[in-house]
């Protein structure tokens, strides 16, 4: 049976960060940019909305009508940004996989907008839909078992509920591990590789699950360290700010207050956003690249190596 090395897969993610730091930064930036854009666009809009409510002596019907209009606008912009974020997520995830499975395609930071991206989007949506269906079936079965065994009384009821909740959680994670090679396999084979991805993962669910936990652990530890450093820097530098005035303005109008705070400190916020972009790119690479590497290792043992795309 073909095998893959978890160590090789994870170290390949670190290797990618070392080889292509700028690409990793750009991937993170692309993921962070919509969030910054949504704050920059939505905070003033929300501020205006709050200001409209506070207008004294205005006709309540007029206020309600204006509120409805503003809310629809906010809702529209926010939905649009969410969609843009989803598209960027697909583009960036595919770029990370491409950087591992087709390492020679380095131009534009491995970013493209083509059939690979469409395939990854379709595979992603299919997996999400599949998980919802699986969760629905498991919940229905859980309800059936719950009804059937409720007569046993306490403490068995609680034990059964806990066992089922843990079972559902583990089943979903194992399922995620089992299908985790479908997207990288689709990028690698330039086709919808549902079957290939499924076959590559056969008999390796435990190893993939273990790798998933390990990467999650590394991501959590990294986040905690960076959060600690960030907090230390913030505590050391926050003394220079006029906190009572900032808190007063936020209390008066949270959105306008935050907007003013961001405007006054934009250089620091820009630096923070850039640092966060780099970190996000690193964590993203760590979360995706090992699976692409595992896919490549397994496929290399299954068939003779194919020529790289370029």
């Amino acid at each position, binding site marked *: 049976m073909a095998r893959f090395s978890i160590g090789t897969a994870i170290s390949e993610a670190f290797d990618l960060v070392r080889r292509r730091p700028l690409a990793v930064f750009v991937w993170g930036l692309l993921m962070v940019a919509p969030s910054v854009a949504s704050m920059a666009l939505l905070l003033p809009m929300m501020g205006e909305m709050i200001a409209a409510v506070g207008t004294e002596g205005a006709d309540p019907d007029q206020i309600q*009508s204006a509120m*409805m*209009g503003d809310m*629809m*606008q906010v809702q*529209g*912009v926010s*939905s*649009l940004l969410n*969609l*843009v974020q*989803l*598209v960027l997520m697909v583009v960036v995830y595919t770029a990370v996989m491409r950087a591992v499975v087709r390492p020679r395609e380095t131009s534009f930071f491995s970013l493209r907008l083509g059939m690979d991206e*469409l395939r990854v*989007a*379709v595979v992603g*949506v*299919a997996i999400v*839909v599949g998980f919802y269906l699986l969760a629905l*079936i498991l919940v*229905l*079965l859980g*309800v*059936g*078992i719950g*009804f*059937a*065994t*409720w*007569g046993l009384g306490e403490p068995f009821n609680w034990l059964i509920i806990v066992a089922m909740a843990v079972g559902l959680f583990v089943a979903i994670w194992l399922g995620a591990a089992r299908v985790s090679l479908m997207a990288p396999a689709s990028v690698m084979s330039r*086709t*919808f590789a*549902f079957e290939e991805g499924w076959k590559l993962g056969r008999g390796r669910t435990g190893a993939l699950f273990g790798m998933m936990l390990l990467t999650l652990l590394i991501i959590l530890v990294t986040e905690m360290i960076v959060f600690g450093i960030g907090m230390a820097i913030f505590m050391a530098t926050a003394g220079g700010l006029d906190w009572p005035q900032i808190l007063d303005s936020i209390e008066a109008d949270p959105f306008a207050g935050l907007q003013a705070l961001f405007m006054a400190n934009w250089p620091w916020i820009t630096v923070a956003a850039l640092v966060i972009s780099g970190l996000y790119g690193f964590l993203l690479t760590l979360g995706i690249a090992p699976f692409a590497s595992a896919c490549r290792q397994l496929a290399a043992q299954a068939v003779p190596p194919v020529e790289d795309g370029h």
Partner: protein
Amino acid sequence: MAFSATDAAFEGFRVVRRHPMALIFWSLFYAAIMVAAFAIMGPNLIGFVSATEQLEKSGATPTLEDFAPLFQMMGMLFAVLMPLSLIASAMIYAAISRSVLRPAESAFGYLRLGMDELRVLVVSVVLFLVFMALTIVMSGIIGMVIGMTVAAEMPALWLLVVLLVLAAIAVGIWLSVRLSLAIPITMAEQRIAIFDSFAFTRGRFWPLLGMALLAGVMSMVVGLLGSMVAMPLQMATGGGMMGLEGLEGESLQVILQAAWPAIAVWILINAVMSALQVAVVYAPFSAAYRDIKGGASD
């Protein structure tokens, strides 16, 4: 050409790429249907809303007699809209099938109103009745078991109820897949062929199910990408159909005068999206039939 689920799943995109004009015709067709539906429903719907509001304002507990005019109005609406929707569906399904099976007949974006459409209509109605009967039978069995469970006070039987619900869903999916080639066969062989689909789908359940799921997912992706284009346009013209909320209770003329850009953009966007999504979802089944038939005769 042998049948490949992933190849066939892309047929909708291929059809549009081969004959972009077909998408324009289908979009115009959808737009015409939407305008017709809006023209028919608009005033009646306003009447329905007013009648409901009056009933609500009266404060008294409504009786069945009070509801009678409302039911009558809804009945009249459906009496007009149901046939319109059935004919329109038959025309568009037939057009998509024709675009895959007889690509040379591309005039009017493959849209016709003839014997093919009549046969597709008959097949659709029969399939609807088959699934309706299945739903009634399954609901009856499940209802009976629920009744027994409650009467016998045997909670363990609830597990059986859940398993029966899941089994009913599985049977529904199985039958949908096994009958999924009925319309393509009817179009290709120019005769009503409902149960011939069983022979063509034998041993191909999973690839066909995978193809259908893939087509459904691609339609969702198309919908998501389409809404990225649609949203700014709708916002620029007054928030789409949501913007009509303030005009509730007004006459159709007032609604059209006040919100025609929003309505026009909404109809245009939905027409194009519906045409593309229906092509993405339905064309693969015709491609599957074509490839299975081709593979068998090779």
